[in-house]
């Protein structure tokens, strides 16, 4: 029995969803305030690191689930277990929440007492065999009604945090949240983790597929995905602000006004793989190669600085004077 349990607990798949948004606070939070915000549990501390960027990670909270898995082929597989949710705040400015779980290749055909699920946090066991490919596609496509919806859990946590009394609920500029859905297939220990797919879809959706060695915990994959989601949000948001017609066609102080929030709140946030597990850091190289995240960021920041410089040259007196 023990052996059977041990066998079934080994996961073949990890899935998650990250939501990224601007913290609804006019001022960025400092480390202490960040720790206060992310204190989701009284019994565990918030991890705050100040170097190389200010980054706070909440303790994990569990959500018990007993529902169908999202599947692309319509097969109805009931699954029971717990989903882990956690939140992170970067530089007191960007708020993220992640919900993720791991699944074994097969599970028992009956539901067991809760205690047995609780001792394996973050594991969701299917009734019978896990339809791996269909689940991967189902998770990436998004859950239907009545299916295990990671987005709901992540969004629920985000909503809870947005309501926190610490926040003044004012934003320095308007921005669009993004969500990244990810799946990681397990592969034998010792092989190198790899990134097999990253897509940018409409409506702020991104999807990502990974291969993850068995010895790398799912939390590390969640951390990598949070890091990617954060930088993708930065690129998307700044690009959108630059594309906005009012900046493109604008002239005079309105350019300064429009670019001001980018300079004050966003430009310094670029710091890829600052908090990514060492076993996964190299996956960034793939994205740096193509499409070239940092190259694009370089280009965007240069464009902004050039615009501002041009403004200062053409109108040295008005450009930066208070209006």
């Amino acid at each position, binding site marked *: 029995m023990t052996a059977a349990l041990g066998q079934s607990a080994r996961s073949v798949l990890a899935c998650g969803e990250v939501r990224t948004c601007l913290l609804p606070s006019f001022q960025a939070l400092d480390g202490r305030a960040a720790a206060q915000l992310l204190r989701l549990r009284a019994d565990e501390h918030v991890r705050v690191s100040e170097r190389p960027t200010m980054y706070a990670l909440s303790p994990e909270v569990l959500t018990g689930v007993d529902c169908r898995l999202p599947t692309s082929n319509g097969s109805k597989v009931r699954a029971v277990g717990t989903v882990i949710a956690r939140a992170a705040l970067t530089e007191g400015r960007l708020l993220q929440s992640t919900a993720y779980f791991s699944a074994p290749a097969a599970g028992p055909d009956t539901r067991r007492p809760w205690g047995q699920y609780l001792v394996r946090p973050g594991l969701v066991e299917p009734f019978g065999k896990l339809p791996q490919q269909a689940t991967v596609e189902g998770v990436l496509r998004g859950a239907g009604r009545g299916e295990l919806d990671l*987005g709901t859990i992540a969004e629920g946590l985000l*909503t809870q945090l*947005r309501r926190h009394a610490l926040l003044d*609920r*004012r934003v320095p500029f*308007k921005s*669009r949240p993004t969500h990244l859905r990810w799946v990681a297939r397990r592969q034998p220990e010792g092989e190198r983790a790899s990134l097999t797919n990253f897509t940018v879809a409409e409506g702020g959706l991104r999807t990502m597929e990974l291969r993850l060695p068995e010895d790398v915990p799912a939390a590390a994959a969640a951390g990598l995905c949070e890091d990617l989601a954060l930088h993708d949000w930065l690129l998307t948001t700044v690009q959108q602000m630059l594309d*906005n017609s009012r900046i493109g*066609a604008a002239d005079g102080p309105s350019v300064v006004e429009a670019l001001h929030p980018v300079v004050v709140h966003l430009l310094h946030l670029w710091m890829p793989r600052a908090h990514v597990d060492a076993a996964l850091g190299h996956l960034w190289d793939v994205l740096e190669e193509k499409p070239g995240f940092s190259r694009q960021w370089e280009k965007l920041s240069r464009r902004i600085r050039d615009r501002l410089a041009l403004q200062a040259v053409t109108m040295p007196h008005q450009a930066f004077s208070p209006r």
Partner: protein
Amino acid sequence: MLIFAASDKGGTGRSVTSANLAYHRALAGDDVCYLDFDFGSPTAVAVFDVADAREAAEDRGLHAYLIGEVSEPERIDVWAKTEHQVLRDPPPGCGRLVLMPGDVSGGEFATTDDNLRRCVDLLMKLYHEFDLVIVDLSAGRSYAVDMALEATAQPEMSELTARWLVFHRWTRQHVAAAASLVFGRRGIVAGGVHRGHDEEALRGAIRFVRAAVPDPESPLWSQVSPTQSAWMRKTDGDLKQLASTAGIGYSQVLGSVPLEPVLQWREQLITDEDVLDSQIANQETWTALSRLAARLTDDKYWEEA
């Protein structure tokens, strides 16, 4: 900014006019989200011509969200999903135009704490994402109006700028009904104060929009007999007098939309093509909508009278 669109009765053109305002603002470069809170009879899907997208979304609209059946209401990207030929090619530089549809099967429902919580969360989130959030409320003193008043009265919403447009037609009954909807004993102001709104602030955030107003000077009526013409002018003057007495006179009006067959019959967005190419819609209507759209955020029109 949050804009709530209310009306005294059905048939005032509230939905179609506010949808056109959303369209104009998006054309001008704003990111706009339009919420169909007309729970009894959601019409925005028809106005934006996104029936297929609505079909694909099943019943995951605002109604299902507010009663807690889905975690997020469906969003429809109007530029991408509309079946309207002209809207499919928005000009460069325009902002996003997103519709959150109601549910076909959803009716009116009472405001519970949970519904209210979800409503506040949603409005807050959209406020931080979009330049303009337009909420189309069911006609009359409906649950949707109650929920909007209740939501905006919550302390965490105090930082948000919310404004109210009350649409009414240019007739004796409608003028009286609109005044009563706002200032009556069970009106919006009284209901808002009851929920914790500051009366002065709430009054200052409400403006009226006169819809389907026949302009006696318009070339449309140039062929009528002198008697008719004189009568029209007199009636128009009487109505102005009546509106003024009822407290919804000139200073409380954000703008008027002329009587426009295209708005009345087709209930769709009026595009520049309708005005310039096919010329089925009047230039005056386009100008009026454009003016009204600009005034939504022009503080000059929202100062104390």
